[in-house]
């Protein structure tokens, strides 16, 4: 771990860390542009980089992107990223009351605190979890992937059935090409370009960047409110820290834990932390009116979820959220196998991720405190320039992958598909994670069936695999049980 921090002090890692965090903050501050989009668009630029530097850049963008969302949420009442939705509830009212600088200062400090606490969990839990994951066999991996997909599909916003359809669709799109187990060509429908299957990068850029651009262009006419930020954000003092400490600690743990659970992102973490803070508060009626604990809870949790989500990523190769699925893509592009072996075969990358996360949090807090009023002006950049630049970059970045236009057409197709899926309220998270995890799921399932000579019941002799399967089934059954209990209570309480 210490070697990883020392390695970060070299010129190029420092440069990528500063660049990534700055880019992330700026993009995160602009409504309609997300950290996921930025990371997906940056992937082509990392081809020529060392894997550790690439991950440093991307982690910086991730931390900056989630933190930057605070600015638009507070000043425009528009979340810069989905993770900042809850911040709008109290951050914007504070800005309207002339306390915008204080809201930003509290949010930045809360983000940093949440990042620090989740870094602690990441640093302490990752090595032993990776060791534990080394004992996993194919049944454990298959059921773990299944659990991740089911949880993501169930806990994504909207219908669970549509979430499951999204996951299935994503998995099916990963199937065309050469079957990795026996080299059989399948589902290419005679197209030579499909022999290698659909590449990850065009699917990611299309699904996240292009579909988001389509949404933004549709709502381009909506004017942005202007709430000025004078001077720098207020630096939170020791007294403020002590006053908010219980909320900070509680929200950090909630955020980290939500982040660890496969498939759930910063927006859910912020919602749960906000709801808990309101529940335990002596003045719950003040939430939503410019109440400081609301901003603290939301921003602490959404940043803490990053560290939590990195834990399953680097220990088991399971994405904790959609953004981690893109980070898995980065590892694959650099010929690294995500999973517990990362600590054994490429420890500089695994520990580099942990070190970069802490460093990015430190850089984030310094940058945001120093430059928040300048960053706020970026939100008002004309969309004509931003959107056209992003579209061009999507095309060039995708083409650069394999120097073929087939990938660009795939990107455009998935951009349209992603937009259409969201319009019918099919979540994109399960779709992308299904696409990313399908090869792992199939490989592990077939290996498990071969090792057990087709006897599925052997799964039940393995405690971890059985537990993962039980959690999957419980997650699937919970909405029905919950509905049944609700109807039963309603029936009991209603008059005869």
């Amino acid at each position: 771990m210490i070697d990883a921090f020392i390695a970060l002090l070299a010129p190029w890692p420092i440069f990528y860390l500063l660049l990534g965090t700055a880019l992330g903050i700026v993009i995160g501050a602009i409504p309609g542009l997300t950290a996921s989009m930025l990371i997906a668009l940056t992937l082509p630029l990392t081809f020529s980089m060392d894997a550790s530097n690439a991950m440093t850049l991307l982690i910086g963008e991730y931390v900056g992107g989630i933190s930057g969302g605070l600015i638009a949420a507070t000043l425009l009442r528009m979340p810069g990223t989905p993770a900042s939705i809850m911040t709008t509830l109290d951050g914007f009212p504070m800005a309207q009351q002339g306390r915008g600088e204080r809201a930003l200062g509290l949010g930045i400090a809360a983000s940093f605190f949440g990042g620090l606490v989740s870094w602690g969990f990441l640093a302490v839990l990752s090595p032993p979890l990776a060791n534990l994951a080394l004992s996993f066999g194919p049944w454990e991996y298959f059921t773990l992937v299944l659990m991740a997909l089911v949880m993501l599909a169930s806990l994504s916003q909207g219908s669970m059935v549509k979430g499951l359809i999204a996951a299935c669709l994503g998995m099916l799109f990963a199937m065309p090409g050469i079957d990795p187990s026996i080299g059989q060509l399948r589902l290419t429908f005679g197209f030579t370009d499909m022999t290698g299957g659909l590449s990850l990068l065009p699917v990611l850029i299309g699904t996240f960047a292009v579909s988001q651009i389509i949404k933004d262009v549709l709502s381009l006419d909506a004017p942005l409110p202007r709430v000025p930020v004078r001077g720098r954000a207020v630096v939170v003092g020791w007294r403020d820290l002590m006053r908010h400490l219980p909320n900070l600690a509680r929200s950090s743990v909630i955020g980290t834990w939500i982040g660890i659970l496969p498939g759930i992102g910063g927006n859910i973490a912020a919602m749960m932390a906000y709801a808990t803070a309101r529940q335990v508060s002596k003045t719950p009626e003040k939430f939503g009116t410019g109440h400081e604990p609301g901003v603290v809870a939301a921003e602490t949790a959404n940043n803490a979820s990053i560290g939590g989500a990195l834990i399953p990523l680097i220990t088991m190769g399971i994405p904790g959220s959609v953004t981690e699925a893109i980070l898995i893509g980065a590892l694959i592009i650099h010929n690294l196998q995500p999973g517990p072996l990362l600590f054994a075969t490429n420890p500089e990358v695994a520990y580099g991720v942990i070190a970069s996360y802490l460093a990015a949090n430190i850089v984030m807090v310094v940058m945001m405190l120093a430059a928040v009023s300048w960053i706020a002006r970026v939100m008002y950049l004309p969309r004509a320039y931003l959107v056209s630049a992003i579209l061009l970059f999507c095309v060039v970045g995708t083409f650069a992958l394999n120097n073929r236009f087939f990938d660009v057409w795939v990107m455009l197709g998935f951009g349209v598909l992603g937009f259409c899926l969201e319009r019918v309220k099919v979540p994109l998270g399960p779709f992308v994670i299904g696409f990313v995890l399908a090869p792992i799921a199939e490989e592990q399932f077939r290996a498990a069936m071969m090792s057990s000579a087709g006897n599925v019941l052997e799964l039940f002799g393995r405690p971890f695999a059985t537990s993962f399967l039980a959690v999957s089934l419980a997650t699937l059954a919970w909405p029905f049980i919950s509905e049944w209990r609700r109807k039963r209570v309603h029936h009991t309480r209603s008059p005869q």
Partner: protein
Amino acid sequence: MAASMEDGGGTVVPWGEYAFALLVIAAAGLVWFGTADLPPPRYEPVGSAALPRGIAALMALLAIIVAVRARSGPRLPVEAGGSLAGPLRVALLGALMVAFVMVMEARHVGFRPAAMVFLFLTAVVLGGLAPRRMAGYAVFAVALSLGLHAVFTRLFYIDLP
């Protein structure tokens, strides 16, 4: 999107849900058809076709559930019609992107001139036709296309058309 039609009673028929379910079932059918000529498993209990078919079958079942729920669920009130400006803008941008990619794929025009035209026209579609802004768009288009070309070819050693 409403993606539906008023049924005469002031509420919408969820045609969007039905269309979605139908498309998903069609996709599942396509997968089933596409895996029909795959050989049976020889050295393992599960062959190449097993997982795609299993997922396709599950997906079709879920799509049927979506359709049944849409039929039996509450009808939503009719939404007020929206402006056409947004969809028109998206359609124009889509056409520009397709044209840009086709022109480069045909290799009649190189990346730099194609990107300059694409950027300029895209900025006009998004920002409007005000003469004062056009100069800005032109400078932006030239600068970004030249800059991006230099970055990819000189820094990353990636050839562009």
